């Protein structure tokens, strides 16, 4: 007979259970403490507001803000709509709208193909699609010059021989749009890919079994379901396109096609216009970023709450018409060839040519441009500065992203959580070129900062602040995927916030943190929009050096500098990836050793 069960509860003294399991008393219920979170988020928010605020102040002032001669005026704002800035604004809007539209459509199609069509090597294709994100728009523009420079580009050279005229002209609005499409499609892909992946395949299958073709299902189900993702992607890509300085500076400025970025640069560096008018243009550039951040924060959060029970996400269609599978097999290699292989190959080839030529012989190839670049002391300085910026900035940025990403997901207060999420998107959507103007006004307005404007530390801090939003997004998605119970188990076991970060969060998030470090490092290496307004010779970076070689030096030197910038990014990626692999291998070994 089974022994009778004892059901009488036994009273324990308070804390006895904790003592039995060797736990310490829990200290409060907040993670950083609510006040700590408010302080961290508050400081970040203030930093976030500095640039837009000072850009607005600059736009509403005659003279530099904070100086005795500064007076309030509306003339800068009205001036940008009535003076010679109308054409740059029109060109910029046209450039941004067309590029953003093409990028968004292309990214949506590529994401759908990669997620829904059963193809081999999806990870490799996915990687190939985002490669241009690691290549600076300046380098892509250079590669287009290498391909389509009038009478000199590689493709034009071949075309000339066959048909007697150029195939295309790199110095046109269309070429600039093409370069932007290549540069920003990977970003659009990254923005929209998550939306497509999270769209349950049942939604599409429901369309198909109820009579809609794949095309109709795509138009009637996929596109409307991703409407908010599409809108946000379009706006973010639009922001990237309108703020770009390198592409119009290289391809449009030489033929007299002005854009807002080049007009602002000319106003501040060459004295063609006033800095206050440039600030007014910067304010205009901020507006779409603000719209993107608001739409992204509110609309996408609303969207993600709509599931209606469908759970099969990220699946591929198993019974697709053959033309779609074959179409995908053609589109992907074609895209990678046009956006990655051909431009980079042309850039590398052109960097070895002694002089631009349409007929290439073996004797035309030399290392002379590389020798020139390597013998230039400024190049060595730029390498050194870039390395310092990358190591310091990416490390600081990753640490900040960890803290802010944590608050965005696990923050004790809904206010700090929402604000962290909003700020991360807002910072991402802020045009760097406009941010740079805002910061420039800020540094001139604060007396004790004036002398530090061009220092490497200043540039590093500004770049870290600019790109930390990339990290916050990655870290918050990583933390959201971690079971909350892991951390709660540590808390109820008595671990304080530092211990929880060190023993639970950071080990689980190490692969994400490596990705964050890599993303910030790449972004800092290729950044030109902000640095070009702040640098001096003692803080010149590789991207600025590449841009400067284009001013009055043989184009071959510029190509060589572009290739060096590319190699620098590749080296960073290779080293970080090797470290990541080593980490994974060591973790696997540890698991095997422990029998896991």
């Amino acid at each position, binding site marked *: 007979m089974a022994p009778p069960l004892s059901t009488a509860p036994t009273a324990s003294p308070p804390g006895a259970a904790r003592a039995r399991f060797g736990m310490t008393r829990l200290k409060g219920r907040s993670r950083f403490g609510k006040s700590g979170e408010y302080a961290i988020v508050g400081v970040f928010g203030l930093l976030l507001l500095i640039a837009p605020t000072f850009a607005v102040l600059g736009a509403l002032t005659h003279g530099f803000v904070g100086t005795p001669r500064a007076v309030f005026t509306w003339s800068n704002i009205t001036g940008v709509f009535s003076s010679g800035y109308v054409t740059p604004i029109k060109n910029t809007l046209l450039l941004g709208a067309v590029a953003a539209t093409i990028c968004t459509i292309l990214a949506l199609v590529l994401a759908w193909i990669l997620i829904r069509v059963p193809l081999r090597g999806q990870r490799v294709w996915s990687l190939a699609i985002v490669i241009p994100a690691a290549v600076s728009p300046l380098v892509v523009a250079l590669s287009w010059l290498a391909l389509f420079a009038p009478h000199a580009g590689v493709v034009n050279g071949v075309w000339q021989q066959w048909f007697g005229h150029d195939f295309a002209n790199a110095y046109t609005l269309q070429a600039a749009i093409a370069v932007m499409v290549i540069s920003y499609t990977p970003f659009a892909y990254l923005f929209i890919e998550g939306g497509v992946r999270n769209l349950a395949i*049942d939604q599409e299958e*429901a369309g198909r079994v109820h009579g*809609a073709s794949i095309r109709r299902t795509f138009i009637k189900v996929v596109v409307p379901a991703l409407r908010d993702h599409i809108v946000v992607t379009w706006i973010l890509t639009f922001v990237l396109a309108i703020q770009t300085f390198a592409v119009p500076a290289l391809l449009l400025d030489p033929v007299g096609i002005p854009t807002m970025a080049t007009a602002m640069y000319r106003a501040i560096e060459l004295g063609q216009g006033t800095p206050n008018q440039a600030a007014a243009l910067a304010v205009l550039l901020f507006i779409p970023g603000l719209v993107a951040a608001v739409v992204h924060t509110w609309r996408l959060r609303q969207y993600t*709450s709509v599931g209606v*029970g*469908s759970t099969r996400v990220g699946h591929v269609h*198993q019974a697709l018409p053959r033309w779609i599978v074959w179409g995908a097999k053609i589109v992907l290699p074609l895209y990678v060839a046009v956006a990655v292989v051909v431009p980079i190959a042309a850039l590398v080839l052109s960097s070895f040519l002694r002089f631009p030529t349409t007929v290439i012989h073996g004797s035309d190839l030399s290392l002379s441009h590389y020798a020139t670049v390597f013998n230039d002391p400024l190049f060595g300085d730029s390498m050194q500065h870039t390395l310092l910026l990358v190591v310091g900035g990416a490390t600081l940025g990753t640490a900040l992203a960890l803290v802010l990403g944590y608050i965005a997901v696990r923050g004790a207060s809904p206010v700090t959580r929402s604000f962290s999420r909003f700020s991360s998107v807002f910072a991402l959507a802020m045009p760097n070129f406009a941010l740079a103007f805002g910061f420039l006004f800020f540094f001139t307005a604060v007396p004790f900062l004036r002398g530090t404007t061009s220092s490497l530390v200043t540039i590093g801090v500004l770049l870290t602040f600019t790109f930390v939003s990339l990290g916050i997004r990655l870290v918050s998605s990583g933390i959201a995927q971690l079971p909350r119970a892991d951390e709660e188990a540590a808390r109820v076991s008595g671990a304080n916030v530092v211990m929880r970060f060190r023993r639970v969060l950071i080990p689980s998030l190490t692969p994400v943190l490596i990705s964050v470090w890599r993303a910030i490092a790449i972004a800092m290496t290729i950044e030109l929009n902000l640095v070009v307004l702040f640098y001096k010779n003692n803080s010149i970076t590789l991207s600025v050096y590449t841009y400067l070689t284009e001013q009055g030096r043989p184009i071959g030197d510029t190509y060589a500098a572009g290739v060096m910038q590319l190699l620098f990014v590749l080296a960073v990626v290779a080293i970080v990836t090797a470290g990541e692999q080593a980490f994974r291998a060591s973790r696997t070994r540890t698991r095997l050793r422990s029998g896991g």
Partner: protein
Amino acid sequence: MTVELVSQLGQANADICGEKVEERAGLIVQNLTKYYGDHLAVDGVSISVQTGEALVLLGPSGCGKTSMLRTIAGLETANGGTIEIEGEVMVSGRRSVPAEKRPIGMVFQGYALWPQMRLIDIVAFPIRARGGVNKREARAAAEKVLATVGLTGFEQRFPTSISGGQQQRVALARAISSRPKLLLMDEPLSALDRNMREKLRIDIREFIRSSDVTCVYVTHDQEEAMAIGDHVAVMEHGKVVDYGRPEEIHRRPATASSAVFLGATNTVCATAERAVHGGLWRARADIGIVHFRPGPGVDVHAGDEIDCYWHPESMAPAQSDVGDSAELNIWPAEIRSCIYLGHEYEIVATLEHREFRLRSPIGVTAGVTYPVAVAASSVFGYPQASSQLGGGNR
């Protein structure tokens, strides 16, 4: 028979009724095979469902029932076999009609309602896509369909603003709105709570009967299968292992694995001794003498090792003065626990260190030794080699 299943078990039946099947079949599937890489998900299954009737595919997770449904829908490519819907060939050899061209409606497990559309547009979608009618006509038709599922007044709502049960009704309305010849339902009630499931399965059953639509319904819930299906096919490892009317397969499962899946979780291993009257057999087990009925088509010989299965609800506490007989197995068991479930008791009893479960309207005191009885005709016996799932308390 109104619904025929042609499978390893039902081939003979289909041959007998073949002519009738050809005339009235709403769905004929023959030798359907589906691979995922090297994994054989559907293994040469053949079924036939008569127009206006419901066949339930029942089985545990991973048995191939959803793969089969999705292949019928055209969402998966068949690796072999043929599929016909009301005489129209959908799959044959390399020919496969795309999902959107098949005359079907489908209710998905998670409903797959489009969150960005209003209910009226969701239901009108198949009407427009299939019927080629304009938006106004499609919406008018959709309103009528929504009314048939009791959602009048909800036309302008979005799927997120209605309850789970209402979402299920919208999914059903969409599936039937274009008057499909075949209705496919993939575990449509699994996302709902028990009360809602019980209510809706009656509604679905009534709807299928009244609408005269052919239906294939997938579930892993045996109660749901019994409530909805005109016939039930039990699947395991991509094959149909049992087929019949709900009460038939519940009372006489064709295989040991089917018996276990259908809830016959009490198991004992015995050695057959001799046949007794009425098709029953006597066997010796470590708990004593067991009288059983061999499963359908099972040949038993004296000396065979037999696995015997019976349902908890077939076993009950007995009066101690009732004597043992060939019709009734009675064993003295130790009552381990007796839990009141609201409408009956669940009793756990042990006999020779084996645990058995009983469902009974009468409770007994835990800790005492009490006779428990099960009718011999409710104990199914299968040769040990055919027992696939094992399970139970062997």
